[in-house]
């Protein structure tokens, strides 16, 4: 029996100890009319070898040549050691460290992770992860409403340059608690939030202003000016950042005069494979004054009975298993294994490696943009400074061009026409450190061929 060790003798002895004749008798409290039938639609079980053959065949169907899509999920090199250690059974098959003494490994990893995320973002305190970047933004905004005693209207200024699916997730997860998103326009030339668009919201009791840096287009926002404006209005600043970029970009704690108040984002670039969108992990850091409004697990360092340092879950009075309906969030299970991978990733690349990954990604995207813009009819949409993504405009609809590129083995980018129809035939492209000059040239040649 797959994964069940019982012999016939075991079953007989165990039933005798229970005082039951057969296993089915153990279900005698369940009304007979509720008992399920044969489950005919479920296939019969297969041995590992046959399941492996089926999965390998299916995996082959998805094989791609070159990926130039980013849009919130980035292809970076992952050192071999990251997942070899992460999938050790002691990490892989443990659970939430409820028994701290028997979970010091996981707890110390989480403490180190919190330390690394506060270092990258410049903030005081980090939690032990959220589900993903989008849900982390939803939780960050709910936290902003609880934290901003002066303006708790729930009105949120949301730039149009924030990831469109993040905005959808914020709507799904916060609407019932009365949060309302008010859109901020972007500059059609530079591709960043228009500072003038802030003026009309002065004196409106805004709870929080969201700033995504770099924004969805890959452009760098004027974070200082927006942050200072928000604070002058009594609004909190919620930053959405790419952790790789923080090796080179000013940490949110230094935005404007007072810095961002809550920082969140998608942790995937730190050692998680693309893998169809998950599992990834969200991160959330903040100033110490807001720590009691933070959702999720937090690990602290303390002492044991002998005065020896050790780690345990702390500030649990915020959480659902203690506070029930008064908790800061319903989050319980989070993304521990991905955090383990990210912690090992950050240890292996270090500050210099992360800076080189960021720098090489900027350089490669620059090369890609130059190569594509040299194709007749193709142009670059925005002039603003950027990180490792850019918007290019095509002479034909992206819905026509991208499948043709895919047929040539090139996943050419994210079609922006549905979320940004005003941009025309626009595609968001990305080239991380993983792309070579030859591969970039291949993309440009394929595009030329498709458009010819």
């Amino acid at each position, binding site marked *: 029996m797959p994964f069940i060790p019982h012999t016939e003798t075991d079953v007989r002895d165990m039933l005798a100890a229970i005082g039951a004749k057969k296993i089915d008798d*153990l279900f005698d409290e369940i009304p007979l009319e509720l008992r399920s039938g044969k489950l005919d639609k479920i296939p019969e*079980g297969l041995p590992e070898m046959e399941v492996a053959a089926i999965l390998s065949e299916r995996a082959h169907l998805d094989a791609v040549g070159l990926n130039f899509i980013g849009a919130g999920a980035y292809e970076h090199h992952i050192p071999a050691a990251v997942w070899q250690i992460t999938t050790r059974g002691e990490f892989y098959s443990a*659970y939430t460290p409820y028994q701290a003494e028997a979970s010091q490994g996981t707890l110390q990893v989480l403490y180190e992770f919190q330390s690394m995320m506060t270092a990258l973002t410049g903030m005081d305190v980090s939690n032990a992860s959220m589900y993903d970047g989008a849900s982390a933004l939803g939780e960050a905004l709910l936290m902003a409403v609880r934290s901003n005693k002066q303006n708790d209207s729930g009105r949120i200024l949301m730039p149009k340059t924030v990831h469109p699916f993040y905005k959808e997730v914020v709507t799904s*997860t916060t609407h019932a608690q009365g949060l309302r998103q008010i859109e901020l326009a972007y500059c059609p030339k530079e591709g960043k939030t228009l500072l003038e668009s802030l003026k009309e919201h002065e004196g409106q009791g805004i709870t929080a202003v969201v700033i995504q840096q770099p924004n969805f287009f890959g452009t760098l926002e004027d974070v200082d000016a927006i942050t200072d404006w928000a604070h002058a209005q009594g609004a909190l600043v919620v930053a959405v950042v790419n952790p790789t970029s923080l090796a080179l970009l000013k940490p949110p704690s230094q935005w404007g005069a007072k810095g961002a108040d809550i920082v969140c984002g998608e942790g995937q670039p730190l050692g998680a494979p*693309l893998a169809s969108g998950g599992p990834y992990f969200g991160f959330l850091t903040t100033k110490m004054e807001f720590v009691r409004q933070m959702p999720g697990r937090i690990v602290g360092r*303390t002492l044991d009975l002998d005065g020896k340092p050790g780690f345990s879950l702390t500030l649990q009075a915020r959480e659902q298993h203690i506070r029930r309906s008064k908790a800061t969030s319903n989050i319980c299970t989070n993304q521990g294994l*991905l955090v383990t991978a990210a912690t090992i990733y950050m240890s292996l*690349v270090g500050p210099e*490696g992360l800076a080189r990954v960021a720098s090489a990604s900027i350089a490669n995207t620059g090369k890609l943009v130059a190569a594509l813009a040299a194709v007749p009819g193709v142009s670059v949409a925005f002039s603003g400074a950027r990180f490792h993504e850019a918007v290019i405009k095509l002479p034909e609809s992206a819905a026509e061009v991208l499948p043709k590129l895919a047929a040539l083995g090139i*996943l050419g980018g994210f079609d922006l026409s549905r979320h940004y129809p005003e941009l025309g035939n626009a595609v968001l492209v990305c080239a991380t450190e993983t792309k070579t000059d030859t591969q970039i040239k291949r993309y440009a040649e394929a595009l030329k061929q498709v458009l010819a």
Partner: protein
Amino acid sequence: MTEKLIFEHSRATRTATAQMPSAAVDVSAIPEHLRRKDKPMLPEVSEMQAVRHYTRLSQKNFSIDTHFYPLGSCTMKYNPRACNSLAMLPEFLARHPFAPASHSQGFLSCMYDLQEILKEVTGMAGVSLTPMAGAQGEFAGVAMINAYHKARGDSARTEILVPDAAHGTNPATAVMLGCSVREIPTNADGDVDIEALKAAVGPQTAGIMLTNPSTLGVFERNIKKIAEIVHQAGGLLYYDGANLNAILGKVRPGDMGFDVIHMNLHKTFSTPHGGGGPGAGAVGVSKRLLPFMPIPVVGKEGDSYRWLDENDLPQSIGRLSAFMGNAGVLLRAYIYARLLGREGMHRVAEFATLNANYLQARLSEKGFDLAFPKRRASHEFIITLKRQKKEIELTATDVAKRLLDYGFHAPTIYFPLLVPECLLIEPTETEDKETLDSFIEALCAIYEEAKKDVAYVKGAPYTMPVRRLDDVRAVRQLDVRWNQPAQTHG
């Protein structure tokens, strides 16, 4: 035994050179005022230092692969290794979430098949796989209940009923969706108090959230009656799938009358718990809730598969993640389902229940008090140490900590809140009889130790990397990140 922090191994300019691009850093593309001026305090270590450090940390964990882990309500069963290695096939790992359908048929077919398997095994009409954990599945479920009432123009239904034995996530979820919560008491045998339920339902009732078997480790025998009362009052029934392992292949939530359910695939479908996630909280719905499912869902047309989004499901409660949830976890669940197959699924509940009832019977015979002595165990059961606490001051914490010294992870303690000094024990179907017997021996030995010298048991654990930790100090002198002593930062 103390392992330094990775930061304490760090030395300026030391690097794992093989792990970084060779080109030097060039920040000229970044405007001066947006550049980072300081070096972030990440560790500077060699590859071997990092590997040794994290390998050593892993060895400080109890896990299913190394220890019996009877953590009640968490279903810590064996995670087959094939599920991991096949979900990590290079093509699956390389697939971008926005890859076109032409380059996604393999992955999408697995997701579609998983949806179909989950529909069949739960008796629901539709399944959406996107919620990323049980609590997010709950959120999706209650959001669908709200959307259903709203679509019918019934805006008065804003109250969610929750039995007092429920997981804390249930009331927390209801509040996140703007609902108020009313608790329903449980009777002495562990069933929902039917009279109290009748008195609580009304035109304000949006629905009830139920776990069955309940967190008390017993099957809710009046489920048909409860469904009738709530449905007649115009409310819907939500099934919290935390304990689905107890009934997999035996009873289907759809047949019990539930309108919406979530499944913790990291429990019942054996995906890894990963030291606290990732989970996956797929939701299943009855016919009337189909239009409200969270997107995206996988559809099949002819022989090809594609995502269904807001164009296909305009009344959807929307997206819960930027992409499609914890895809890799879902792949592992699918692989597990194919390895088990139909017969294997029937056996899950049978052997999980056999193991729980065996432990319950033997422990009762050895003198431990059961919380519900007249009931069958489901896949888990509760022991209460109320008597031992009164007689010799032995608490659930004491037993839990001492069990660690005997090489067993502790059961869940002090949950459910209704039972004093409780141990919630869930052995799962993958444990052999010899392991269960040694666990029984360990509990008996601890009880004997406590009778002789309870102070000794209260000092446990003695063999772990640390002894009992000062949680009060952890809160009062909050230390939640490493500060490099010599360097000013930020």
